[in-house]
Every structure is written in C-alpha cells, then in structure tokens.
C-alpha cells in the first residue's frame, strides 16, 4: 500500500481495488448496527488541515476518522492563503510537534499535499483532500465505489465526464483512477475547458454531449462556475447549459441502466436540472454516504498498520 494518498495516478489497480473492497466492508460493518464505531484507530490522531473551506469534505473525513475511533483535530488554516505561503511549512512543523499520525489536507495550491508529504517537514501520512486544480483522490474513489455498486466491475464500462475539466481536480483524479480500473472514460466539454494536451490522456474527447449519451453507463456532471464566463471560457451560462447541461431531454437518451453522478455542490439549472438531479437514477446523495466508507478505508489502510520502523524490523527478521 502507498504511504501517502496524493494522487490516484499513484494507485496500482491492486491498491485501488483494495481500497474499494475495504470500503465495501466498512459499509457492511457500519450500516444498521448498534455501535457504528470501530476501535481500529484508537490512539491515532488525524488532523483535518483545511486551507480552503469545504464543509462537506471535512465533515466526511471527520466522520470517517471518528468511526474508526481516531482523535480528530480540525485545523482550519483559512486566511493563511497562498499570499502567505510559508504558513504551509510552519503549519506542518506545528502538526508534527503535536504528534499527528495522519494529515488530511485541502489547499488551493496544486501540489500542496505533495509538498507536505515529500518536504520532510512532517512524518505523518498525508491524504490529499483536494489540491488546487490537481487532484482529489478520495472523491474519485467514492465515485468509482458508487459506480461499482450500481454497475459491477468497471472494466469496459463507459463513463462520461462532462464540464469544466481544465479546472477540475475531480476530473483529473477520476480519469487516472477509472482508466486504471479498466473503464473507458469520455471527456465532454467546450474546447476552452479542456487542458492542452488532453489528447494524450487515456480518454476519448468529445465536444458534443448528445453524441455520447446513447452508450454511456454513467454520466458525471462537473460543477461549472458561472464566473468562468468572465474569462471567456464560454459566452453565457445559458449557452453553456444548452450545449453541455444535463436536462430531461438528454437524460432520456441515456440507457435505462445508466446512472448520474455529481461531486457537488451542484449548480442546479447550470450543468444539471433539478428533475435530473432528483431522479431515481441520480446517485448524488449516495455519493455522500459512500464518501465516508471510502475515507474510512483509506484511513484504515494508511494508519492502522505498523509504522515503517516496525515493518522494516519484521522484514529484517523474516
């Protein structure tokens, strides 16, 4: 198993499946039982280090860590924005002094989690809870988990991801993870919202949403910020939703079994209409509960086992 969870690109197929299978057990263990808590991470300290507001992700990690009996410290570093850059190092040193075993970090700067994990400032395991426009690995894992629960193994499944790919850490993490798991990923967006060089990603690219819906197994709608139109990424919110929004008409073109995902928070009326978001084939609410299981799995696999010293001592003895 990897030491830090920074990017889904670091996950082998075996690692990814181990996390998903473990999440499946977490779901079975905590659903409908008298005591939802497991004693597994008793005595371990997990710090939620959030340089950016995200109540839903922070809460999800907090619930996950607490269900495993970890001590959870919420360290909101908002205001220590990138303009005061050194705060990342100072904060890391503070957390190290406090004895954090795991750090869940959300930061507006791409690579912040990577820096935290590799700079030598802190010894703790680092879980990336979203870094800039780079990655959001647990979101992709919960998406894959949700899709797998509905459709079975992802091999050969056709997953369509629609929207602001260039600014989306969710899209990057999903492309890497879903392709590792054998799915065929299709990115659909106006060309302005696709990064340069996307043709070298392990995906198909389409500009026309209608053309790819008929054989989609799952459609993931990405959040599109209205402000993007001020930077000329698209002319108007109305034109965007007309060309790339998922409405009832487009929803009807999907196969009966196809499901609809959204990482949230949704812009209802922009990338997705309310009736589609609330339809029975929308798994958006389920994604939230699955997020807890996936994060429990990640925390368990990264924090429950031996520290490196013990591991190497054992290997030496074997």
């Amino acid at each position, binding site marked *: 198993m990897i030491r830090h969870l920074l990017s889904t690109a670091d996950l082998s197929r075996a690692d990814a499946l181990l996390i998903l299978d473990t999440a499946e057990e977490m779901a079975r263990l905590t659903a409908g039982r008298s005591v939802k808590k497991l004693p597994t991470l008793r005595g371990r300290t997990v710090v939620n280090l959030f340089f950016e507001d995200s109540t839903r992700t922070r809460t999800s990690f907090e619930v996950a860590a607490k269900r495993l009996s970890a001590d959870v410290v919420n360290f909101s570093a908002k205001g220590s924005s990138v303009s005061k850059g050194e705060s990342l190092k100072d904060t890391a040193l503070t957390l190290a002094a406090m004895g954090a075993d795991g750090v869940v970090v959300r930061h507006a700067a*791409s690579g912040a989690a990577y*820096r935290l994990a*590799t700079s030598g400032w802190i010894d703790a395991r680092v879980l990336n809870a979203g870094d800039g426009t780079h990655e959001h690995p647990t979101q992709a894992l919960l998406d894959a988990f949700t899709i797998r629960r509905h459709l079975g193994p992802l091999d050969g499944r056709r997953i369509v991801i629609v929207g602001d790919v260039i600014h989306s850490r969710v899209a990057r993490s999903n492309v890497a993870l879903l392709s590792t798991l054998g799915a065929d990923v299709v990115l659909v967006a106006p060309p302005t919202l696709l990064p*340069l*060089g996307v043709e070298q990603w392990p995906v198909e690219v389409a500009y026309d949403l209608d053309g790819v819906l008929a054989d989609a197994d799952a459609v993931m709608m990405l959040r599109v910020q209205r402000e993007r139109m001020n930077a000329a990424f698209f002319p108007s919110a109305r034109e965007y939703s007309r060309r790339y929004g998922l409405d009832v008409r487009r929803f009807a073109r999907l196969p009966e079994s196809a499901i609809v995902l959204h990482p949230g928070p949704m812009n209802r009326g922009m990338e997705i209409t309310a009736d589609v978001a609330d339809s029975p084939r929308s798994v958006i609410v389920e994604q939230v509960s699955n997020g807890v299981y996936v994060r429990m799995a990640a925390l368990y696999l990264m924090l429950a086992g031996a520290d490196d010293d013990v591991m190497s001592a054992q290997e030496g003895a074997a």
Partner: protein
Amino acid sequence: MSEHQTTLITGARILGGEPADLLLRDGVIAGVGQGLDDTGATILDAAGLVVLPGLVDLHTHLREPGREDAETVLTGTQAAAMGGFTAVHAMANTEPVADTAGVVEQVWRLGREAGYADVRPVGAVTVGLAGQRLAELGAMADSAAGVRVFSDDGHCVSDAVLMRRALEYVKAFDGVVAQHAQEPRLTEGAQMNESVLSGQLGLRGWPCVAEEAIIARDILLAAHVGSRLHICHLSTQGSVEIVRLAKQRGLPVTAEVTPHHLLLTEDLVASYDARYKVNPPLRSADDVAAVRAGLADGTIDIVATDHAPHPVEDKECEWDAAAFGMLGLETAISVVQHTMVDTGLLNWAGVAERMSSAPARIGRCDTGDDAQGRPLAVGEPANVVLVDPSASRTVDSTASASLSRNNPYEGMKLPGGVVATFLRGRPTVSDGALV
C-alpha cells in the same frame, strides 16, 4: 589589493587553442606568447586550463537596493567573480526601481566600491516598471552609470505604443531596449510551461505563444523604427525560429538564452519543488534542443544568467506562492560547457564570443577605459578567466558566494570550474576561491 599586480599565466590554452603564456601587467595584457619578461611577476601555472576573456552578464539581479536579504551588490558580484564574470548588468527591478539617475548611480557606485566586477546598471523602461509612462531614460544614460541597456525585466513592456516610443527614444544615446517577452493576458496566474504536464499537474499553463507573439511584434516594431532590440531569456523553439528569420532578413535583433533553459526541462516541475519555478518557465526537451542549436548557429547571440536570488522562505512553500527565479552566476560556465562544449556544439572561442564579447557589445561596454569583452591581445584590459574543463563538481548550494540558496543544480554533477578571475589584472578569484 594593488591595481598593479603582475601575473604571468603559463601554458594556458587561449580560447581553448594552443598553450601560450599570458602576461598581465599594469591592468592590461602586456604580452601573449612564449619567453615573456616575468620580472616581478607572480607565476600561475595554467597547464591544461582554458583562458577566456572575463565573462560579461547582460542579465543579473543584484537585489540591492531593497532586498538585501536576498543579495547585495557585494555578494552578487562576488558570485559573479566566482563564476568568471568581470562585468554584470544589474536589472532594474529593485526597491526602489532603478528608474532614475539617482538609483542607477547608487548601484553603479556600490559596484565600484565592492570591486569584484564592473556593475553596469540597467535602467527601467517605464516608471516603477508599471508599463504606463517612460522613465527618464536620457537622464540615466547621461548619469555616471552611463546606462545603455533599458529593461522592465520581470514585466513585459506590453503596450505596443510605449514599446515603439522606447525603441525610438533610446536611439539618441545608442541604447537598447531588452524586452521581457511575456504577453500578460495570456499568462495571468501562469505557473509553468503549458503542456501535457501542466494539465496533469493542475498548474496554470504558460503558453510558448505568449513569448513568441511579443518577440514577433517587437522585431517588427524595431524594424519599422530602425532601432536595436534585445530579447531577454528566449526559451522556446518558436522564438528561435522567429529570431532566425529576422536575422536572415538582416533585422537588428539580438537575443539571449539562460543556462537553465539550455539544460533543465519542465519535467522537474513534477516534484512541485519551487526551486524549478522560473520566468520564463522551464520548457520541453524539444525547446532545449532548439535553444542549443540557436546558440550554436548564432541565432541566439549570448548566454545571460538571469541570476535571480530569493530568500529561503520565498521558495520553501507551495508552488503557487513561491517566487520566480533561480541562481545562475556561479554555475553558468559549467552549464555552458556541459550543454554546448562537451556536446560539440560550440568551441571555447564560441563561448568567449557568446559570454564575453557579444554581451559587452550589446551592452555598449566594449569601449573606453573600463572596456569589457575585449580580445585576449596585447594592450587590452586584463579581464581574464581561467577555466579547468577537466574538473567536475557536485553542486552544493550552501557553498556559494550568493546570499541565496535557490540553486536548481543542487546535487547535480557539472563539469568545469573557474580557477581564477582577473579584473583589470587584479585577481578576484584565485585557486577557485575569492580573493
């Protein structure tokens, strides 16, 4: 330190050619050849070493006044001497900005007091580098500093009208505008070369076209008004092609490339280690090959370091928050040997041309009492550097004359090294150490 030290350098390969002796007396080269009069001379056995004219850097950030925590004129020129330089052009983006005669004279005087290399201040093109109105270019030219190079480096003079006027105005005193070619709208918030990698790393891309579009525009502007144009730190294959075409048409453009753009590629950014954050950004391997070829065939006239010191806290942080820039003075000749000489693209005479004579010519400091970039000939100022091409070293950023440690070559093994530097006959570096 006597100005009138006499040194006989024996057996050095002049411009990498046949071994000969070189006599430095009274600040000038008093003899070249065999059997020279060594009366009162310190003998320096230079067998196996290459002797070049003192290097001239057209692009150095000395940070004084304003950021003396990063570098001072003294430490910056010491680093220059350690790198074999006898003259540096100090960029204008200090605090206050070098946009008046007062500031450029202060920097120039600090250089003379330090005594490690001639400091030639670069004047800002626009007041406060703000790109709004012209600075008093004439006053800076007429000052004791005798400014001939003007640049808003760090910022692009993006307003086409302002750029045209600057190009025209400096003709009156044979000045040159050195353009930092970066279209600002195309590079808002940009963090690294725009490529497949920038898309994967989630770092805002910095397209090559943002550099190339300005270079193309300014070449056309310079041709239109009949002015000289110098292009700072050219970094892309497209830029090389545009300049090559302009030179084929006989247009008066010169261009520089930095050592780091000759060696390093954007792949280093994958570490998110801000030591590799620089403006313009590190580019692709194809771009590196193109700038090497351009430097070899003369499309690119010179190597300039863009030595840009930053304190630790400005680099030891997340990528977006980090400052742009890397050190370059002390490693420049080694990187050029590694990328150009050892690859057979350039001989040592070519290195002397691109790191000494040409930059001195462009900066108009190749004449007068303190002339730089002159040939190694009798009667010329004794600005000389001895390089050991057979040496090899692992770069240790803590062993630096610079106040800063943002060295992108840290831990890399590089060939060559400066054994001695002479500024008008007086050693500033001897046995590889500052005098």
